[in-house]
């Protein structure tokens, strides 16, 4: 059994180029244990390892092939799983691609007895859960210029996936959701959404934005409401944290213990 590792620059195109190379060099064989990973992953002394350069042309060809295999819905499913962040990610994704190509044209995403397919389904589930949580745990604060702003820090890069949801729900209000971990934001201006880098935002002075005069009042009301709905006789902190893990609290208005003072002065 030979161990071969293909290393790429970490982009999705890099991964697809690596898949192309794997097939081109006939590395998909039962006597080869092939792994694809990005250049940051720890080295393995016992494996032969190749650094690949990303080739958009090759990436495109693989992507078209996958599209033909899975259709739009299957591709979306695969991409959700690909948002899962871990070192084995690319090897599992390769396993899914191999299994799909080997069984084409049969659809393989329900072959839960296959390890890589099952792993992918669990990743999709995690990513979807994070999407669901980010729909719930966004807390907008109204800025003086009327834009509703919210900082978040999701585990996976799900903001672009949930932006359409917020655009539909808040069709008549301008809003901005900032991913503090990945340093970018989605901004909706009543007609469309755009991605902005956070340093760009700093230049535009977002951080100095004053909050709307009524904002502290409604934050305070929400905190009061949160406290008033609790039933002390049924206290269950474990369950509470299970539903709302501590890592999200930082940006949840109801979990800020020192509410901002109510200012009534109008600007």
């Amino acid at each position, binding site marked *: 059994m030979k161990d071969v590792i293909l290393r790429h620059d970490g982009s999705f195109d890099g991964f697809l180029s690596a898949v192309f190379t794997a097939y081109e060099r006939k590395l998909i064989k039962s006597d080869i244990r092939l792994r694809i990973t990005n250049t940051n992953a720890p080295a393995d002394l016992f494996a032969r390892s190749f650094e690949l350069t990303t080739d958009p042309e090759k990436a495109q060809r693989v992507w078209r092939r996958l599209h033909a295999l899975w259709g739009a819905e299957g591709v979306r499913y695969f991409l959700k799983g690909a948002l899962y962040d871990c070192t084995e990610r690319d090897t599992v994704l390769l396993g899914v691609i191999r299994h799909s190509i080997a069984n084409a044209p049969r659809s393989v995403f*329900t*072959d*839960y*007895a*296959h*390890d890589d397919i*099952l792993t992918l389904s669990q990743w999709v589930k995690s990513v979807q859960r994070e999407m*669901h949580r980010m*729909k*719930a*745990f*966004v*807390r*907008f*604060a*109204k800025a003086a210029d009327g834009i*509703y702003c*919210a900082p978040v820090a999701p585990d996976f890069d799900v903001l672009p996936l949930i932006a359409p*949801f917020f655009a*539909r*729900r*808040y*069709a*008549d*209000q301008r809003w901005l959701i900032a991913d503090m971990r990945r340093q970018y934001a989605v901004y909706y201006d009543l007609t469309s959404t755009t991605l902005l880098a956070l340093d760009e935002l700093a230049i535009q002075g977002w951080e100095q934005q004053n909050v709307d005069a*009524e904002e502290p*009042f*409604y934050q*305070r*009301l*929400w905190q*009061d*409401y*949160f406290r*008033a*709905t*609790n*039933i*002390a*006789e*049924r*206290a*269950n*902190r*474990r*369950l*509470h944290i*299970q*539903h*709302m893990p501590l890592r999200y609290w930082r940006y*949840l*208005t*109801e979990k800020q213990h020192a509410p901002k003072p*109510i200012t*009534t002065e109008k600007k």
Partner: protein
Amino acid sequence: MINHDRLQNKLTILADAAKYDVSCSSSGGKRDNKGGLGNASKSGICHTYTEDGRCVSLLKILLSNHCIYDCAYCVSRSSNDVERAAFTVEEVVALTINFYRRNYIEGLFLSSGIFKNPDHTMSRMILIAKKLREEENFHGYIHLKTIPKAAPELIREAGLYADRLSINMEIPTPSGLAKLAPEKDHQDMIAPMKTVRDEIVALKDMRKTIKSTPKFAPAGQSTQLIVGATAETDRQIIDVANNCYKKLQLKRVYYSGYVPVLEDSRLPAIGTAVPQVREHRLYQADWLMRFYGFQADEILDRQSPFLDLDIDPKLAWALRHRHQFPIHIQYAPLEMILRVPGIGSKSAHKIVAARRNERLTLEHIRKMGAAVNRAKYFIITNEHNPHLHQLDDLDLKQRLATGSHSKYKQALSGQMPLFT
């Protein structure tokens, strides 16, 4: 202009008084937003969780806690000495819109004590819903609590603005209700439920021919049953729930373990533990009826009217029906796979999808999310399964009980003395 301090005070009082209503779900609504504010997401979103672990998806408040009635189990009852408050229509609208715009909530759940008379109270609630829809262009979720004895016309009007209507039965038996809520009887609750049911059916039929027919309470209706305030059995509760689903076509029945907050000789004393495990078992039984194809009378035998607190009702059923097991995971119909202890509905569907291309082992189904430590006693797979012998063991329940309730151990340990 809204007075901040007064509104803050009212919110504290009227949210506190509404918190015992457990129904909070915002699911089942499908409201499209055409350029206005909000939409109802089909699965509903829990925006936060209380420190007791319940989901908060709606702004749940009373319009007022003034009440002319005196139901023993209710903190707002007329004889209770509490601070009273009432929102104005504008205040409820402002709260809903401002909370919604900040993504705190999915919408409004409005209930009320009965002030002046049932019709007057109901009309005010309708006014709020109407204002939200027509003046604020609000498409988020609205759940209105129907006031017992309100006129059928008002209930019909409410259903045009609300996504869901509900009326809480509260006490599952007519005799229990007569004892605790002398001004009400079961018919006061059942009559409006029938009105709503008939209206939903009628408008649904009409929509088939006339597309512009308005939607009526598109998310259906629900009710709540208080558990443990009176002496009813689980069997009685499950029968009531079953009737609600079958005859009244309700979408959900909620169970609320009674929280003793009032001194009253007709009720459990203050300090009595909330029957949380019992409540949990009832929810599990309810799931079995709604999603697992169980009939009400399969869940409890005539001779044992209470759910087993040590093990979940599906496991209890399997242990009583061992002659129907083991089943073969490769060939058994979905309905039977759904009945295997330890296999939930998601893993059951995964199993049925996966077995088309693979001969499944215990390891496979473990990876698909089944609790194999329970399931292994009830199923045949394509490998030797040494646990099958124990299907006939009399102490199988004991073994499964110790392995399965770890999740509720904490809750159980606090309450065990009450139940043993």
